[in-house]
């Protein structure tokens, strides 16, 4: 990959990615709406909370948690696995490979470029929630907001790298969509997307701490909602970036090995 080409091309990649995202406005809007699972979970958990207390999570904390989950999901989403699978199957990955920009960068730019469109859905909901419950459940420590911002980048990288690595497995397996489905099922359980991690039994929570899923979603949400003090936040952030580094290595390995198997079908 050429760093010069990449840096030079990045603004155009982002602009073109944005143009692509708005080409199908309705589809993008419906897709963003389809990720409203946290809002459904919010209603469910609020009903549960009425029956019995759940640790530190009262009604405002639950509202803040699941709305933060919704926002984090909107801002860290990636669909690269599906792109690669389709491009490997029909051979169009070839056209990306001809350019002196790493396909990972091109895919990443497409994902980032769609964020403003997804923001059109997530921001009004976040603002409405803030007006509804106030900023009480959110952390007031500026240092933790900086940690949060870094953890958002880390969460996006974990999601992107996972998508890319599993997508590259299609170079070995013809299709790896089902593997992504398995990953997503585990993500739903262990990331804090459906169930806040702090409500997990201790044993399961310990397992979750060593899996990458929490660092895709749970960590930024927990940081936003004041679940950790500074020391715990820094420790978790360190662990998240360790996961990023490991996944980066996996991506490089799978990509290098997979390219040799690319059949460039069609044409």
């Amino acid at each position, binding site marked *: 990959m050429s760093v010069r080409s990449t840096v030079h*091309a990045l603004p*155009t990649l982002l602009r073109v990615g944005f143009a692509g995202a708005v080409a199908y406005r309705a589809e993008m809007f419906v897709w963003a709406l389809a990720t409203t699972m946290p809002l459904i979970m919010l209603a469910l958990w609020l009903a549960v909370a009425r029956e019995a207390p759940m640790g530190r999570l009262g009604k405002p904390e639950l509202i803040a948690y699941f709305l933060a989950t919704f926002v984090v999901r909107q801002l860290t989403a990636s669909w690269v696995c599906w792109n690669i699978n389709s491009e490997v199957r029909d051979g169009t990955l*070839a056209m990306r*490979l001809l350019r002196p920009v790493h396909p990972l960068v091109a895919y990443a730019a497409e994902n980032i470029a769609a964020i403003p469109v997804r923001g059109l859905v997530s921001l009004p909901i976040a603002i409405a929630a803030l007006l509804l419950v106030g900023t009480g459940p959110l952390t007031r420590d500026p240092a933790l907001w900086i940690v949060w911002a870094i953890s958002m980048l880390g969460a996006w990288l974990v999601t992107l790298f996972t998508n890319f690595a599993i997508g590259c497995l299609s170079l070995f397996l013809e299709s790896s969509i089902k593997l992504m489905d398995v990953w997503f099922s585990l993500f739903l359980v262990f990331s804090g997307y459906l169930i806040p991690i702090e409500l997990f039994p201790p044993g399961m929570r310990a397992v979750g701490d060593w899996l990458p899923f929490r660092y895709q979603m749970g960590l930024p949400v927990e940081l936003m909602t004041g679940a950790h003090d500074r020391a715990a936040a820094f420790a978790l952030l360190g662990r998240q970036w360790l996961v990023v580094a490991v996944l980066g290595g996996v991506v490089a390995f799978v990509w290098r090995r997979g*390219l040799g198997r690319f059949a460039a079908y*069609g*044409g």
Partner: protein
Amino acid sequence: MISVRGLQKRYRVHKRAPGLKAAALSLFQRQYTEVAAVDGVSFEIEAGERVGFLGPNGAGKTTTLKILSGLLHPSAGKVSVDGHEPRRRENAFLEKIMLVLGQKQQLLWDLPPSETFELNRAIYRVPRAQYERTLDELVELLEIRDLVGRPTRQLSLGERMKCELACALVHHPKVLFLDEPTIGLDVSMQMTMRRFIKNYNERYGATLILTSHYMDDVAALCPRVIVIDKGRISFDGKLEDLVRRVRPDKRVVLRLGGPVDIHALKSIGAVIRHAEGEAVLQVKPGDVSRSVAHALSVLPVRDLTVEDAPLEEVMRELFEQNRAASAGSEPSA
């Protein structure tokens, strides 16, 4: 510029009989066969050459082009393109080459071609002024001014191909691999494309390898052809040498001023076609002068040309010869 030595590309292909039983069995026991798409190909191409790759479907032409452009890793052999090993996909290599696949597109499907042009300008770091000059010229020559602002998905195949070619040339690649570049184009546009490609080669000294099923493309563009059949090279040389070797006989095309007797035609050469006002005869190369003189003396000739056999026929005959030769060399069961 391009050096290929003992190139091989083998694929492992899953083989299965049709039907439910075979489908169920393939869950537990899979049978694979190894297919040699390219089987020991060697050639050298000088800078600025225009070379046509010819061969029947599945001969290994496109596979070779994909290896030369770094998309496929060879199973064996050595490949070098302007000093680069394509499989390494070095940045300096990718900036020099472009592959245009008639059946694939690099244009962004949902956006107008102008967006992909702009993207390539940024990726290949083409200075703005040079880009605008080049694009203006490409748009003019390929007659695509009205097309570049329309979403790619709304363009016809031919319109897309013209835009694909423009997109491929924005950064002035030194080596151009063209796989069926005139597919889907009408006859007049095919001629425009050929003129354009030839002009690009002559103006920029670009090396050009072309595959096409339209023999006119090859005849118009490529002084040298490499014929690949079943992954092996069966001819490498000048186009006229290929014609002379496979089908040395000449065609005498006669435009006639009145009806003629078929026996009169047969006395000159083998009759290939005879219709009102026209006849095409096939004669031995050494008999051309005599046959022409004879035709002019006994027939009401208004116009006469001497041509080689059409390239399509030459290729068909060559592939049949190859098939017969390989059938003869295979051991009987």
